[in-house]
């Protein structure tokens, strides 16, 4: 902002919005060409972008979606634990994980409705089934998971159901198994939901994000089980937690290693970077705790750490994607790179830019 001798007469200036900033706000990342000193003139458009404006648009998704990623994972993996407990004959674990699955799926549904601009049309999700739309597939998975989960969970509750109780008792076994079957899809489809977009960091993570997400779901649900269930029934959960932690750490590293070096940046920077860093430490702590969680308070603490780790992973990945959509650099640089690489290899017939 310029100043003058007459400043004292000025009316107070309205707060400038960042979007409208003339370089006053966040420094734009430059392209490869030299830049005119910021602010000195109509910004010359850099080689790489249009006034630093994003190319793709972040979806209008807010925290409920990240929460959904988390609770969906918890629900799905709880369903798996419940089925395992059902088969292995661990009634407390079974009850608690079934109830956990129901609660988590309930929160998920609420989060979904909260996120939709028009909640009254939430049911439109089930108008059709589209394999090309992970959101559609996911809606059906969620439905397919929720119904048996509800039934199985209701069976665990000491509520008077009258004559229905009989039916419930008969069906709860198959229902529990069905919920278990739909658990991994519920825990994993959200990775495809994010990856199947034009959002650079999500799409760039498409090879390995499902592994991160199922691992994260596993450790979170296991952590929850460690909190809710006495240690003598949580052995499998603790082992799953450890496997989840290992899977999470490995998958995350492999994923990052395979991503474009620019597209991976948002996972390391800013708030998402902090979240993911924290997630890693929490996961390690939770994992170690799970190994020694005979003691109740250790179990509870580890469980909380694991849950938190998973939440941090989901919020971190979620927000990293949104960040990557807000800066043209993440769209343009990797696309340029891959285009140049193909051209170097002599593949020149698949470019969107042509001269004839």
């Amino acid at each position, binding site marked *: 902002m310029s100043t003058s001798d007459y400043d004292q007469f000025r009316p107070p200036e309205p707060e400038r919005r960042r979007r409208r900033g003339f370089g006053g706000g966040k420094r734009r990342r430059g392209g490869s060409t030299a830049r005119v000193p910021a602010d000195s003139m109509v910004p010359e458009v850099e080689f790489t972008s249009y006034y630093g404006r994003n190319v793709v648009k972040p979806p209008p998704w807010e925290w409920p979606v990240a929460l959904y990623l988390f609770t969906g994972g918890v629900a799905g993996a709880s369903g798996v634990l419940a089925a395992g407990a059902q088969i292995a004959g661990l009634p407390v674990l079974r009850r608690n994980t079934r109830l956990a699955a129901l609660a988590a799926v309930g929160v998920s549904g609420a989060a979904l409705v909260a996120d939709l601009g028009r909640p009254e*049309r939430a049911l439109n999700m089930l108008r059709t089934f589209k394999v090309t739309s992970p959101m559609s597939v996911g809606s059906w998975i969620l439905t397919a998971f929720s119904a048996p989960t509800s039934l199985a969970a209701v069976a665990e509750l000491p509520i008077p159901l009258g004559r229905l109780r009989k039916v419930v008792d008969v069906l709860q076994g198959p229902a529990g198994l069905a919920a278990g079957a739909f658990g991994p899809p519920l825990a994993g489809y959200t990775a495809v939901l994010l990856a199947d977009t034009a959002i650079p960091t999500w799409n760039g993570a498409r090879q390995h994000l499902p592994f991160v997400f199922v691992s994260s779901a596993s450790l979170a649900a296991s952590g929850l089980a460690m909190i809710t269930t006495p240690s003598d029934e949580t052995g499998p959960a603790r082992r799953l937690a450890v496997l989840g932690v290992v899977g999470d750490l490995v998958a995350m590293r492999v994923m990052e290693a395979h991503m474009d070096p620019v597209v991976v940046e948002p996972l390391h920077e800013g708030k998402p970077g902090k979240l993911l860093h924290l997630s890693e430490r929490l996961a390690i702590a939770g994992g170690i705790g799970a190994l020694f969680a005979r003691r109740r308070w250790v179990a509870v603490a580890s469980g909380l750490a694991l849950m938190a780790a998973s939440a941090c992973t989901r919020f971190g990945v979620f927000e990293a994607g949104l960040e990557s959509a807000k800066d043209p650099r993440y769209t343009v640089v990797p696309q340029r790179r891959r285009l140049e690489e193909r051209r170097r290899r002599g593949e020149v*017939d698949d470019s969107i830019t042509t*001269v*004839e």
Partner: protein
Amino acid sequence: MGDPRTEVGWPTVEPRKGFFTDTSICIGCKACEVACKEWNHNPQDGDLELTGWSYDNTQALGASTWRHVAFVEQSREQLVAARRSGQALVELGMPTVRSDDAAPDNAAGDVTPPDTDEFRWLMASDVCKHCTHAGCLDVCPTGALFRTEFGSVVVQADVCNGCGTCVAGCPFGVVQRRDDGTVGTASRGYDVPNRHVAQKCTLCYDRLLDDGVPACAKTCPTTSIKFGDRDELVDDARRRVAAMHAEGRTEARLYGANPYDGVGGTGSIFLLLDEPEVYGLPPDPRVCTADLPQMWRRAGAAMAGMAVAAAVSFVMGRR
């Protein structure tokens, strides 16, 4: 090459419709932006503050701006670079679009570069690309987005539930959910239609149904926006770019005319005078669903892995 309409069951009796936006003759009058708003009852966008981005004060395509005119001020060096990058495209061997129809031979021979200006001012009217493989449409869970008989991609406002998935699915940043279209003064009570619904160019579906021409193309005073049968437009566009190269204006290039690009070619094609990103367009867009089968396979493996891990955990005993 796949016609996106047969894939969804339209009998393709009509030629596929599209735009050819020739930015080299655009005068930046923004009549297209205004005509679109008028016709579609789209509200005012933004906060009525000057951006300082040359003459662009609406900034981007969005829920309430379905045509957007970009303004780019460039120095001589940038023009020279653009000429070089356009020339490079030729040298790379592109016109070799894997094309069955013979490319008109031109451009070869003496290419005398015209006077190089000290300065240039680019103007380009952007719009939804009506992609052959449309990310937005593919990922829409409700079927609100559909492929019309004209080959365009349109949102049905009464079906859309505002989930916003399409926003993330579009590699061009076109479609957006209308959350807060605002209209200026208190004295004018405009009703904002379709709040919380995904919004974008419809290729004037309503007008096409009445054998009309889209409002933006109809209004464009310079014919920078040409509307018509896509195949013919692609031919026109190729001829135009060849003619410009013949004049030495090698900065000219087409965007979206290649059926083998990452989105299968676009319904709206453009003649650009610099790299796409200069105008805010992605240089190598790819429809996300092209990789979807692979993604599902990877996810399937992960899910199976999870099941196995769980099984192992239980098999190892209860403690």
